[in-house]
């Protein structure tokens, strides 16, 4: 649906994302209907409080999309917790079963962009830090020694109270310039950003190649230069 609404547009097309297109087309349609029913000119109508769209209008627009069976992707944990029926289930780390092996025959379970060049590689225990409850538990009971935090959030707030206690960080999103990248650099905690994982599990012992050169934020992606995450016994 590409609804032009009350305002003609010679060059416009559909929005790139279906949700944006659905919502904006629906709003345009509603505005056009209300304007036509009012019998007023645009300039008379646009500031008329009696013709304004209401909260109920926007409730109906979202409900219409959900009625198609579509479910939204959540980004903040609280969104899916408060309205679970509205969002898709959260993804988990995939496992293709076809991971490559390193020079010593060990499984390579992921790779990412190094935020900075650390003095050495680090071996530690991978622990998934993706919920408020996990952070709260570690805040109250301490972060286990040797924790390499696997985080699916490139922000700097979810792990704020415990970040400085991590031995290393693997972030499944963002870029080396994301907030988490900025903070790990300030704390001098080795960190991979934009990591792609395959078969990494909670509690795995991993060696992370933090001593590889830092990723160039302005260069094209260099798969060969990415730091590897290697499963060790």
């Amino acid at each position, binding site marked *: 649906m590409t609804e032009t609404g009350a305002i003609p547009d010679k060059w416009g097309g559909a929005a790139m994302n279906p949700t944006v297109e659905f919502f*904006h087309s629906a709003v345009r349609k509603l505005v056009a209907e209300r304007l036509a029913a009012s019998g007023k000119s645009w*300039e008379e109508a646009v500031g008329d409080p009696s013709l304004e769209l209401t909260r109920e209008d926007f409730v109906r627009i979202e409900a219409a999309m959900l009625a198609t069976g579509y479910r939204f992707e959540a980004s903040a944990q609280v969104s899916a917790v408060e309205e679970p029926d509205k969002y898709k289930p959260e993804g988990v780390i995939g496992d293709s079963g076809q991971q490559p092996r390193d020079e010593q025959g060990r499984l390579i379970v992921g790779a990412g962009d190094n935020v900075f060049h650390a003095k050495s590689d680090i071996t530690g225990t991978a622990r998934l830090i993706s919920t408020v409850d996990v952070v709260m538990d570690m805040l109250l009971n301490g972060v286990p020694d040797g924790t390499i935090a696997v985080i699916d959030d490139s922000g700097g707030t979810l792990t704020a109270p415990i970040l400085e206690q991590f031995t290393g960080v693997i972030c499944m999103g963002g870029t080396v310039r994301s907030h988490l990248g900025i903070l790990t650099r300030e704390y001098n905690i080795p960190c991979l950003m934009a990591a792609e994982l395959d078969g990494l599990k909670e509690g795995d012992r991993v060696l992370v190649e933090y001593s590889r050169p830092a990723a160039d934020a302005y260069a094209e992606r260099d798969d060969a230069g990415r730091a590897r995450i290697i499963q060790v016994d």
Partner: protein
Amino acid sequence: MPTKHSYADLLEANAWIRKASDAFYFQCTARTVQESKLFPVNPYIALSYLNAWYRYPDLFRKIEAAMPAEEIGDYARERSTSANIITNGIIEQFYLGGRQMLMDMGMLKPTDALDDVMYVLDFTRRLNLSYHRNHAHILPTDAGLSAQLLPERQVQVFEADALGTKPGDKLHTAVAQFLAAVSQYAFLKNSECRLGIHNSGPYKVAQGEMLVREFVDLAESDLPWLDGVAADVELNNITMPVFMKDTHFNIVDDWASFEAQPSYNHDNMYAVGLYTSDYLSDGYLPVHMDSASELADYLDHLRDSIHAATQGLWKQVAGWSRDQMIDSGLLVYYNVPKDLAHIAGVYDQQDWYTVEDRVQRFKPMFNDEYGNHLIAELVGYISLRSQQGNEYHMAKGSNARGDMWSTIPYSVLGDDEWTESVGPIRGGSTSLPQKTALYTTTQGKLTQEQCNEAARALRVPTLEDGLRHLDDTWVKNHPDDPRVHELYRRTQANSFALKDQGAGLLREDVLRLRKGAGREE
């Protein structure tokens, strides 16, 4: 009836719209990807744009009734406040973002609210021109991604008084640990956005380059969620000039973030200072800079209080509802101009911490996915219907058909198809607790009314008695004028090494006086 704005006014306004559009495109596509598992970031960003659209015009008229925008820019330049590079420069972006979203929803034409749009653009242009007067650009992108805000007289004081340090010593370690802790806190208290972190410069100094690093709104002040948890944070704004060798700051951008070549390495820091200031200080006030040891101890103390505030605030935020998280981020973004009201002495907490009803109505539609994709299309892909130009058009930076913000049609000069305003500010609400604590300032803990009275009474010495318009270009040709000596003496009033030294100093004099004052390692 056609508008009374002139053709020249419209040309100027549209050039500012396009400059803002191009600059924001560079920032949004080159600098970061915003996301958080804690805060619904993009939904709150989009909603903040709408709050800006409906409320800025009236609030700026209220501010300018007390002080013109260009005078506020001068006041802001003499101190570190929340009126800085990122906040001043981003005001028109948020406002135009609200306009563009509503146009894309078919709720607005580019000819609507014309008087409001013209006024907000004019206000922000005058503010930024004045704030950036020293380097005579309006945005850091125009200056090749640098931001030399300060005149010689202030940089001389920073260089003369900085305390020498080297890797492994107590001060060096304290600075590194403090910067990490305060950066972490700044992201959390600002609901995942970078608005609490500010950098300006670089400046050429004796052994390399100086960057002025700043952190603002740290204590119990305007942010209501810091009441209680930040009670022990003593300073609301912190300015830390850092002196680096073997480092070139090649990017200090419109969002006041930096990059360096080679990469920023704390081991290259050879001197540092610590100051505080705000809308009630008459300049930069040194903090525990009598010796390196004293400064190191104080930074450790400050870090401890900030660390405690981080933990306390995180526990509080972890219990918030989605609506509270939305409101906190929405208000942090929306209130980027709030210190302009503080400087003018007309600050009202309700003006800056209310989500207006015209914005509240949109909330049911702002699920995470819609918010994420709307912001991505609006400021990244430039793929919204309302943003598309003709098929021959090639936009700056992308060569695509779209431009981020739509210009104003010149038809308003000849016909009556336009409207004046979004109308007066209306009521609203917020799901967050109301502010109860006093405001932490350099004049003590004050009530809102006391803050406004003190701001209206304040006379910044370097802007008084005919000194306001004496810039470096004038100083160059009047080195012995009594007024230039007075201007420099007033800037040097709190300096350890330069007090009363006046205007005749060159770098070798500054370094000699610095050595004499025992500021080297």
